[in-house]
């Protein structure tokens, strides 16, 4: 029998009846009543059976009193219906409780018994506070056609029915790049960016010249600049890292102030990213103090090796090499465009010639 009970209990644990909460509460209530009567312990199965009986009694009482109310033509029960229901269920024990057929209900023994019980029994309220149950969960319903403001496609569908899902949830549409290509604008933009780069190079060049460092060795940091501004040992002044725009006082039209910080209004993101490692390297290598807006470079600056060759060809060649040596993908657009390269070459030569001719003077492009 104990085995059977165990098996039954395990089955019971797996099956969760819908009324579990109510049953649990009734179990507690019945347990409390039994404790008041005098019991000290309960068998689990006996307590569950007892709770089940209590639930049945409640439901039967409700059903019977509802039946009597309906019989009298009412939907809501009143006290007389309940009393008649109580009598029906035979809740009274013994003969004094029975009522004769003709007697008024209010004089029935059952009421008296209840009254006696209430007066005699000690009041023990339920052990824990209970919320109002069952809890009604409000589900969010699919909006109807009317609520969505749509009209159903098919005439046979009334508007108060839930709407169909949006088309994009089940129809696969091809994805393509929405941006319209404008080659002319791209070219103009590219040229403008290049000009700015050159002006920054020029400013650096001028700065170096001013400080009087004709021979310098590059720092390893600068050489390792990931943007492709590879400063070869014996090569080009233009391959040095650009100067931070804020520090050097240069005539305004030339200087691209926007290159100094990251806040670029126009679409120069690629340029900033290109110079950023170099700028960082410059910062690390060059500065021991904070913002240095002075004209002179600080002492600890590693020297940049600048080899000023007189021949233009060599400059041109080195420039070509510089172009080829660039690793950055951002400047790959500069490759393969021969006419633009020539143009750049010419401009670079111009700049260098200017700076060489006037080494101590500030020159403008």
């Amino acid at each position: 029998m104990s085995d059977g009970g165990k098996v039954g209990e395990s089955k019971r644990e797996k099956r969760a009846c819908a009324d579990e909460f109510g049953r649990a509460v009734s179990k507690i209530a019945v347990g409390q009543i039994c404790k008041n009567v005098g019991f000290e312990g309960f068998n689990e199965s006996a307590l569950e059976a007892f709770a089940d009986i209590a639930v049945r009694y409640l439901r039967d009482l409700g059903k019977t009193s509802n039946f009597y109310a309906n019989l009298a033509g009412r939907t809501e029960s009143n006290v007389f219906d309940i009393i008649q229901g109580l009598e029906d269920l035979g809740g009274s024990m013994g003969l004094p409780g029975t009522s004769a057929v003709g007697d008024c209900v209010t004089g029935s023994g059952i009421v008296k018994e209840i009254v006696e019980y209430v007066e005699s029994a000690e009041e023990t309220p339920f052990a824990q506070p209970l919320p109002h149950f069952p809890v009604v969960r409000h589900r969010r319903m699919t909006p109807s056609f009317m609520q969505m403001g749509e009209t159903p496609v098919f005439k046979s569908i009334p508007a108060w029915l839930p709407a169909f899902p949006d088309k994009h949830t089940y129809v696969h549409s091809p994805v393509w790049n929405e941006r319209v290509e404008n080659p002319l604008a791209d070219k103009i933009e590219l040229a403008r960016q290049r000009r700015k780069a050159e002006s920054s190079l020029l400013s650096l060049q001028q700065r170096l010249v001013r400080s009087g460092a004709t021979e310098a060795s590059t720092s390893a940091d600068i050489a390792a600049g990931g943007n492709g501004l590879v400063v070869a040992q014996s090569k080009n002044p233009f391959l040095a890292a650009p100067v931070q725009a804020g520090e050097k006082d240069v005539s305004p039209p030339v200087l691209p102030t926007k290159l100094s910080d990251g806040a670029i209004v126009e679409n120069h993101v690629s340029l900033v990213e290109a110079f950023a490692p170099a700028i960082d390297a410059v910062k690390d290598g060059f500065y021991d103090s904070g913002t240095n807006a002075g004209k002179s470079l600080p002492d600890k600056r590693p020297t940049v090796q600048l080899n000023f060759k007189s021949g233009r060809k060599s400059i041109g060649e080195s420039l070509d090499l510089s172009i080829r040596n660039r690793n950055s993908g951002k400047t790959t657009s500069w490759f393969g465009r021969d006419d633009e390269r020539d143009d750049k070459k010419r401009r670079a030569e111009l700049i260098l010639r200017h700076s060489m001719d006037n080494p101590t003077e500030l020159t403008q492009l």
Partner: protein
Amino acid sequence: MNQGQQSNQGNRHHDDDAALSEFLASLMDYTPTIPDELVEHYLAKSGFQCPDVRLVRLVAVATQKFIAEVATDALQHCKARQAAVVKDKRDKQQKDKRLILAMEDLSKALRETLLPNYGYARELLEEI
């Protein structure tokens, strides 16, 4: 005579009604062990519809009374069972003093409550 009876009955009605309404009022002070929410839930399940809290309390109290009666009967059975089992006079003190609600006591008590003449009917059947 009929009229006298009726008037007597009328008086009785009056008293009973008064007593009933008094009782219902007093019910609000008494908190039954069976909580109101539980009673309301199961009454709603069976179709009982009433906005009056006093009636809910009445049902709760009636149920509590019923349960208490059954429990009392079961307790008596349990005690009787324990008294019957007297193995050793020495062990009487160490006997299982705890009164535990067991299935057999419960079933007996229920049978007697719901079918008061069960035993009597059985005897009748056996006679036959």
